């Protein structure tokens, strides 16, 4: 993981950032998701650079407001700037984030080749979050949010979301 190298987050701000989660996937904090690219404090004001997962992700406005609220509670003023480059990739989701996602019922993104085989071909590689079987099939490339695809398990018959690999 190159997550740490690519970001510039001051350690004392991490506990506060860790309180802010994705409104669509509440088990994931903004640090798990890798959307915070920079957080530095200058004279009591925290400057945050936030990157969207997808351009139109409506969660971004909410996350921006939640960040300001979390820092206000800690007695700090936060300024949030939305940055587009470099573009977010699912590689920036932390290992811990991927585990939490799985436990929450969303299959974590596979690496690029397997992802393509699952979404474009018929490869049975996406694991059901309910029973663990890979006997699953793609229902729709677009799921309940822009970042997910919809799958169904052919063993336990449960539908589930798969977080699409984005490179």
């Amino acid at each position, binding site marked *: 993981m190159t997550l740490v190298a690519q970001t510039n987050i001051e350690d004392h701000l991490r506990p506060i950032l860790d309180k802010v989660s994705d409104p669509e996937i509440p088990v994931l904090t903004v640090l798990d998701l890798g959307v915070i690219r920079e957080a530095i404090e200058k004279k009591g004001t925290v400057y945050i650079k936030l990157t969207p997962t997808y*351009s139109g992700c409506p969660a971004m406005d909410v996350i921006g407001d939640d960040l300001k609220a979390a820092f206000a509670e800690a007695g700090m003023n936060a300024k949030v700037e939305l940055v*587009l480059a470099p573009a977010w990739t699912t590689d920036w989701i932390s290992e811990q984030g991927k585990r939490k996602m799985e436990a929450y019922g969303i299959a974590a993104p596979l690496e690029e080749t397997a992802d393509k085989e699952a979404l474009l071909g018929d490869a049975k590689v996406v694991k059901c979050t309910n029973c663990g079987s890979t006997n699953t099939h793609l229902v729709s*490339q677009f799921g309940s949010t822009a970042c997910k695809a919809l799958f169904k398990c052919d063993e336990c018959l449960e539908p589930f979301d798969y977080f699409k690999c984005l490179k």
Partner: protein
Amino acid sequence: MKNETLYQYILCIADNSLILGQRLGELCGHGPSLETDIAITNIALDLIGQTRSYYQYAARLIDEEKTEDDIAFLRLEREYKNVLLVEQPNTHFGYVMARQFLFDVYHLMFLEKLQYSKDDQLVAVAKKGIKEVSYHKRFSSDWVKRLGDGTEESRQKMQEAVDDLWRFTNELFLMTDAEKTMAANGIGVDIAQLKEEYYKEVSDVLKEATLTVPENTYFTKGGKEGIHTEHMGYILSELQYMQRTYPNMTW
């Protein structure tokens, strides 16, 4: 205005995404199945998201007081520079997919060139957009093939849709003065160069879908110069309704 030509150029790009996003948004809750309904609104969301990035940038070029919302909601019809293709109505699902496909092929080719622009902001939006539009194209191409190579009725409807929309495709490659200037100085894309590859790629998919590639050479144009089809007024009256009726209202 700091850079009128760049501003006009951004509108040429962003208005396509805004109007197509608005058109797809009209289908929210009306898709033929839950999955396609969600897919269409996801695509609309991506397009509106890209539009916001472009307009936020464009707004900074006008003056400090303007925002993305002023550009989206408070222009007159003649000031919108989208191509005629994207404003065509949602008649049936096959038609919506044909329109989407004819635009997606162009859109992805365009963004793949825009990512090498000399303008950092446009590069950032393009790189983000490529990832999203790749999914759009995959979705619309799949449906063109599935309906084209489907039942007798679906094939006929898809063929009619392609035949009807074909006359709007040439406009994608016509360049306005702003586009020519921006292409010449390395910020914009020389879209006229994309034409041959576009028709080849589109034709390949149509053939795979067992459809006939239209041969008509009558093409229509005007959107890029602000001269729209009658559909545009209806789109704008819905899009702008709240801001026109309750100026400066916020959610």
